[in-house]
């Protein structure tokens, strides 16, 4: 018990000075880009009802959330996802806004999810949601916004890989599997476990031509041209063709905008979030072995709240982005000029004007609280103080040399 007051629970962390500076800079820049693209910030509460996230097609696994019992006995959770609360807000409070509706957020999320957070159980997501655009224009818009947001911070070597939920679901429908077998194969596909898929294809007697594609799916990723031309050599249903056409058009629009070079396709992409319905994507850089960005289309989600509205969006995992930027050595918070006022000579009411003058241009100006010259020197070195000054009786500022 004694130790507990000194340490933190698993998966959470304190952020000290530099971490906070960096976080603010990154989040401000992301928010600035979102705003410039026409997205407006909203915020949902940290606490929501458990039921909001567990009823299908939401995050199925209640085990991964932090639960609390409300005073009246109802089960609450700490927000494990931002998109579902956004959908709730739009459907219940923003139905009469002008559409397409463009919203964005930066929030903490709380869940156990290794793909986005490794050991962390509290992490920050910055994201946007676009409501009311059903065409590929919406998918392309979201992709471009995501890529521009990351590039605005100087992230290099970005790859954004696209998949399509309808391609997978149409293919699995044509396999005519029982639900349990389907889930098993989807899990194996997520692991890119070719051996396992081969075995399952044999066990369930999947027709040869279809099995050929199923076994190949784990490796069907790469540049859009490669993947789209390879997949054409397989037998595809009409729905699968349609999904591929959507992917192709989305990619073409991003290419036309001028950001095509960072796009890829992974037709074997399986999304852990059950609410996705169309184009999905994940972003990463070769410098960090983790997913930084994820998103996609979720046209059915608002229906759960009684509103018929298409939607697409993305979330950036701020912690991962920060890590990648640090590794690439691409993020610097400019140092401000730091001035320490040693003392002020007696002059009623005149100090404020002098301090205001010193603060002009965003300088840090603080009064010295120390007496001992050695301690003042140490403070100046460790806080990287640039100037030591005195405010004189006539209100003028005199620089002092501590040496």
């Amino acid at each position, binding site marked *: 018990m004694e130790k507990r007051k000194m340490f933190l629970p698993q998966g959470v962390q304190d952020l000290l000075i530099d971490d906070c500076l960096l976080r603010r800079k990154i989040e401000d820049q992301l928010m600035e880009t979102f705003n410039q693209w026409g997205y407006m910030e909203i915020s949902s509460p940290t606490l929501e009802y458990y039921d909001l996230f567990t009823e299908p097609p939401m995050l199925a696994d209640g085990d991964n959330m932090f639960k609390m019992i409300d005073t009246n006995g109802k089960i609450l959770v700490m927000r494990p996802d931002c998109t579902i609360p956004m959908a709730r807000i739009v459907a219940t409070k923003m139905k009469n806004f002008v559409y397409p509706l463009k919203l964005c957020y930066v929030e903490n999320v709380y869940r156990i999810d*290794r793909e986005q957070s490794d050991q962390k159980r509290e992490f920050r997501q910055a994201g946007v949601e676009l409501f009311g655009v059903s065409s590929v224009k919406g998918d392309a818009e979201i992709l471009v916004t995501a890529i521009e947001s990351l590039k605005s911070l100087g992230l290099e070597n970005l790859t954004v890989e696209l998949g399509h939920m309808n391609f997978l679901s149409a293919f699995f429908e044509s396999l005519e599997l029982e639900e349990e077998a389907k889930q098993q194969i989807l899990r194996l596909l997520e692991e*890119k476990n070719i051996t396992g898929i081969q075995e399952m294809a044999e066990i369930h007697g999947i027709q040869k031509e279809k099995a050929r594609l199923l076994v190949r799916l784990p490796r069907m990723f*790469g540049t859009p041209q490669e993947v789209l031309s390879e997949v054409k050599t397989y037998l595809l249903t009409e729905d699968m063709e349609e999904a591929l056409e959507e992917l192709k058009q989305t990619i073409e629009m991003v290419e036309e905008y001028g950001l095509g070079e960072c796009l890829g396709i992974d037709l074997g992409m399986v999304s852990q979030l059950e609410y996705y319905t169309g184009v999905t994507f994940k972003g990463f850089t*070769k410098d960090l072995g983790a*997913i930084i960005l994820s998103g996609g289309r979720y046209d059915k989600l608002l229906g759960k709240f009684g509103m018929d509205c298409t939607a697409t969006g993305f979330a950036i995992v701020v912690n991962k982005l920060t890590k990648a930027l640090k590794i690439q050595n691409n993020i610097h918070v400019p140092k401000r000029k730091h001035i320490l006022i040693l003392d002020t000579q007696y002059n009623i009411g005149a100090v404020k004007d002098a301090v205001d003058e010193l603060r002009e241009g965003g300088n840090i100006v603080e009064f010295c609280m120390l007496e001992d010259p050695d301690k003042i020197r140490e403070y100046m070195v460790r806080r990287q103080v640039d100037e030591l000054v005195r405010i004189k009786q006539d209100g003028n500022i005199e620089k002092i040399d501590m040496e």
Partner: protein
Amino acid sequence: MHGKTRLALTKGRLEKDTVQLLEKSGLNTDILKNPKRKLILDIPGYPLEIILLKGSDVATYVEHGVADLGVVGKDILLENPKPVYEVADLGFGACRMAVAGPPAAAENGKKLLRVASKYPWIARNHFEAKGQSVEIIEQQGSVELAPLMGLSDVIVDIVETGNTLKANGLIIMEEILKISARLIVNKVSYKTRRVEMNALIDMMEKQAAEKGDLG
């Protein structure tokens, strides 16, 4: 980010099998046979470096992308699942995860079964799926001793030959699943080093298949 593709091997038996496999694929593995305390081993003439780790660390290194690929037992992946791609079953290191105990234990239906294991997660999952309540007693080694001393009713452990069990009067009561060495890869590395990694995966898979056919 490291330049060469990095492969993490599980020290011990799986390491030997993997080195043999790499050698048969035509790689110069001299340095692997005599590492001289070096921790990062560079394969001459092939864009690959090898690191040697304990099994559970292999999965962790690959999860974080510090290693791009890893060779690790399926038991480790099951006991502590990680978000990595599991791209190939290399076939070697084959054994079984099984429930074992004294012959008498097989007949006694118990409300609460005491299970000793180095694999608490696998053990719990297995019995829970069958609707059997269990008390898991986690062990670090010599699991066979637990039922003999009355610490547990049964054990869940890896069985290779079954000789240790037999020598201690224990029998296999139930096979849970087959275990073998798996090739795992980091999710991002696989995308950003696709060509090199696919070449390596194909090469290792091909050798493993040939070895499997012979054995």
